[in-house]
């Protein structure tokens, strides 16, 4: 029973972080119809920025994560504005290829800069934790979860209550109409991509305090983003949170009770099944038509 509770707690706490980086992926996909294969690389880059600031200048990672987020926001904005906007209307494999090329550039750039060694970011609250009966909750995970939750709520507020957020959502619903309403689509696309990159970097910085990471972790984060975005429905922020928590739980329980990597097989099985049965995701509805017959 303790084992079950412990893995449940860990699953939920990890799920919050998964949601934090997957939200941006889901947003980019939902608003621009772009699947960003470099998303995992953004997560890892965020972790490296926070790690470098911590080891070189002694900056606390919980401050460093904001620096990482701002830096990657700027980077994401520029990448979308200069590169991805150029092929937005091309057949979808173009954007897939372009972001894959970016992924190679970033991941291998990180290897050249920081080597392929595994790193971890040290925090002041290292091994301390909260004990609830037999269940232990490390502060690092708790803080990470709290930040993830707060940022998600903030993002939802931003998207629903500010003019900029509404412009993003409008563009996602109907690009032509948004243009007629005076929205600068180029800017909005770049902004959306920047937000996604910033959130990914922030999540990466937090993940770096909990687990070890290396440039090779990038594909795993991209894949998890896929699963969460599909589970939650594209562009759906609460959906991404729900999807993230679900995936976190499935992974934790799977790790506890199933042998080896069988949990991955199940995750992919569920993914394909969801796609076939409910391509709009478990919650919400899609911005884009998915099924031939729908």
């Amino acid at each position, binding site marked *: 029973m303790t084992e079950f509770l412990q893995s449940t707690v860990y699953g939920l706490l990890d799920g919050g972080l998964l949601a934090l980086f997957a939200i941006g992926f889901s947003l980019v*996909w939902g608003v621009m*119809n772009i*699947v960003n294969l470099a998303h995992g690389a953004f997560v890892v880059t965020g972790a490296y920025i926070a790690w470098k600031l911590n080891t070189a200048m002694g900056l606390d990672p919980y401050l460093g994560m904001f620096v990482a987020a701002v830096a990657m926001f700027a980077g994401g904005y520029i990448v979308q504005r200069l*590169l991805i*906007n*150029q*092929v*937005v*209307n*091309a*057949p*979808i*494999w*173009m954007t*897939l*290829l*372009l972001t*894959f*090329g*970016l*992924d*190679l*550039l970033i991941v*291998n*750039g990180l290897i*050249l800069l920081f080597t392929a060694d595994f790193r971890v970011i040290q925090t002041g609250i290292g091994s301390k934790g909260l004990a609830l009966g037999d269940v232990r909750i490390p502060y690092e995970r708790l803080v990470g979860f709290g930040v993830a939750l707060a940022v998600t709520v903030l993002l939802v507020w931003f998207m629903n209550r500010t003019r900029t957020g509404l412009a993003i959502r409008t563009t996602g619903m109907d690009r032509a109409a948004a243009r007629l309403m005076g929205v600068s*689509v*180029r800017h909005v*696309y770049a902004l959306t991509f920047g937000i996604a990159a910033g959130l990914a970097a922030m999540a990466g910085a937090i993940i770096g305090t909990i687990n070890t990471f290396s440039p090779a972790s990038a*594909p795993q984060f991209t*894949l998890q983003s*896929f699963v969460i975005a*599909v589970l939650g429905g594209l562009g759906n922020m609460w959906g991404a949170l729900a999807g993230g928590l679900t995936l976190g739980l499935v992974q934790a329980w799977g790790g506890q009770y199933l*042998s*080896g*990597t*069988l949990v*991955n*097989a199940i995750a*992919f*099985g569920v*993914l*394909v099944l969801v*796609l*076939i049965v409910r*391509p709009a995701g478990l919650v919400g509805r899609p911005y*884009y*038509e*998915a*099924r*031939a*017959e729908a």
Partner: protein
Amino acid sequence: MARRVGPLSRLGGSWWMWVGALAALIVLALAPTYLLLESEQRTLGSVFMFVVLAQGWNLIGGFAGYPSFGNVVFFGLGGYTTAILMAKARAGFWITLPAAGLVGLLFAVLMGIPILRLRGHYFAIATLGVAEGMREVVINTGGLTGGNKGITVPAVGAEATTSYPGNTGFYYMFLVLAVVTMAVVWAVARSRFGYSLRAISQDEDAAAAAGINTTRAKIAAFALAGLLTALAGAIFAFQQVTIYPDRLFAVDTTVLMVVMAVIGGAGTVVGPMIGAVALQYLSEWLRDNFTDYHTFVFGGIIVLAVLLMPMGLVNFTREAWQQRRIALLDATRRYRL
């Protein structure tokens, strides 16, 4: 302009194209004896293999416009069918090869029936999910597949069910498969089937309204891709002797197929072949000259290629030839926001 009439005109294309292809084929067939070192045969063999893989992707992704990101699943299934049959059932390679092709074909049909109903990114992700899931299944059924420790084909000594053909043997196997693949794609491109695939890629609803059975056409294209890719996987498994799930179901292999087909020219007959040859040699050259950062440079080349010639080398050259000008940013002007 009057068309030259001759025995070749029924085949389409121009006569010099056929003479060129025939000459190239003769050179390639004789090359192992007169021109190539063993190591060069090995390199060229892998180029041929990627011609097959890129063309397999081209059938479903290029012609039908369904961007599969899980084509490697056929490659892996073909390889594992061969390895398991040779190692456990002690079958000869020439029996396992068609068996592998059949497995690839059947799996493509079974997988295609539900998944080809999805469009765009959803299709891409679903195929990716199937491929990744299949790798995990292979890893976790260790009794049959050897799991992560891999499975070894009996290839040497008295154990061998078919004697190991060596570099030259595999060179010819891949060459024959590549030539057959090119012929198949060329036949598809000129057939009614090929036109229905192109129609689906441009507007599936309109294609259905025009009387094309889109489901059947899509599944047929996918099955053909599955068959060819699985055959390549079978030969590859035999060549490698010991195969591992991570290698045979690598996402990178799928991505390479896509990159090669797209850079050469998706939906054309010769494009994927040119892409495969160019990229394979390019990555070889990068590995020799930029040992530490060849993947980095490779990523940069992909980005540049997508931005400068998103329609692929073949279409780019054709347009440049017809308009007598090199227009590097024309396609970007068409696709940008």
